[in-house]
């Protein structure tokens, strides 16, 4: 029982993620990939004459259902299988009375060096898996909210269709099939991510959190 509530080590979860590839192939003859759901949402919801979005998205409903499943899975795991709330009542009380002293296994499992870095970035609240000082409805209409949520989301959506996939479609599915396109894209993900994490994010937090 304790094991179910703790975070699982990477050598358990990594292979489980990798198993999505054969499971989707065998159960539905589908290629693992999540970002393509963004394109289907465009095709389904935004009226457009653009041929890029003119296709029968209904044939790809499976992908949207898969995405919906991820939301449900996230809800189930967070509420019933993470050691932070109902199961640990004293922690839950602390969380209600003062968020900053909340114990969050997702934060405590980090390398101390990383926690020190986040502290120097000005991040003191970490009850959620994404810091609530940045990712919160109250922050949304501020410049910080614009950069991290709106611009960040735009870049993710734009970059992923441009590259032809995301971490699942390229880095996992694509590299699994030894595709050169996916290796180039994954190199790109890391180049962009390194620039973002070393320069852009610390710079923005310097402006907004201090």
């Amino acid at each position, binding site marked *: 029982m304790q094991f179910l509530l703790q975070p699982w080590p990477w050598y358990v979860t990594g292979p489980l993620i990798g198993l999505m590839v054969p499971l989707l192939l065998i159960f539905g003859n589908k290629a693992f990939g999540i970002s393509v759901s963004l394109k289907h949402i465009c095709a389904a919801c935004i009226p457009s004459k653009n041929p890029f979005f003119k296709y029968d998205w209904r044939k790809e409903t499976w992908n949207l259902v898969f995405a919906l499943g991820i939301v449900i899975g996230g809800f189930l795991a967070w509420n019933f299988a993470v050691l932070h709330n109902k199961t640990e009542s004293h922690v839950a009380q602390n969380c209600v009375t003062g968020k900053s002293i909340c114990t969050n296994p997702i934060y405590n499992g980090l390398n101390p060096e990383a926690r020190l870095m986040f502290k120097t970035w000005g991040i003191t609240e970490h009850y959620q898996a994404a810091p609530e000082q940045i990712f919160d409805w109250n922050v949304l209409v501020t410049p910080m909210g614009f950069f991290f949520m709106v611009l960040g989301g735009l870049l993710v959506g734009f970059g992923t269709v441009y590259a032809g996939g995301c971490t699942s479609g390229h880095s996992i599915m694509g590299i699994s099939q030894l595709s050169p396109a996916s290796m180039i894209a994954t190199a790109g993900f890391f180049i*962009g991510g390194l620039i973002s994490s070393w320069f852009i994010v610390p710079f923005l937090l310097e402006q907004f959190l201090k």
Partner: protein
Amino acid sequence: MKLIKFLILGICFGIIMVKSEAFSWFRIHEMFHFQSFHMYGLLGSAIATGMVSVWLIKKFNIKSISGDSILIKPKELKWKANLLGGIIFGLGWGLTGACPGPIYTLIGTGVTVFIVVLFAAVMGTFIYGALKKRLPH
């Protein structure tokens, strides 16, 4: 009813995203600062498992449960698009701390403001569609 299996696989994936902590903004930045092996081990072992699976499926010509041959469509190589798109995606990945899988997961875990991130990502995809012809591919 055919869709139920995809819902179940999605639920499994969402649970794994939480239990692996791959949906955490903190883990992503820890990874980009090379402070922990966690994310590298996670991605590496996921790729290794996927690779062996694809190899086995091809080698033994394994059929899908409906009896069809399994078709693995090759990813189209357009190196400019793969690289430039990849870099743009990476910039956003660092800001939001989430690629599309974790965006859906975070919404489920109650960080509901990620609905806005999802909406922005859909807009980003739409903007790409509009500019596609003018971009290098």
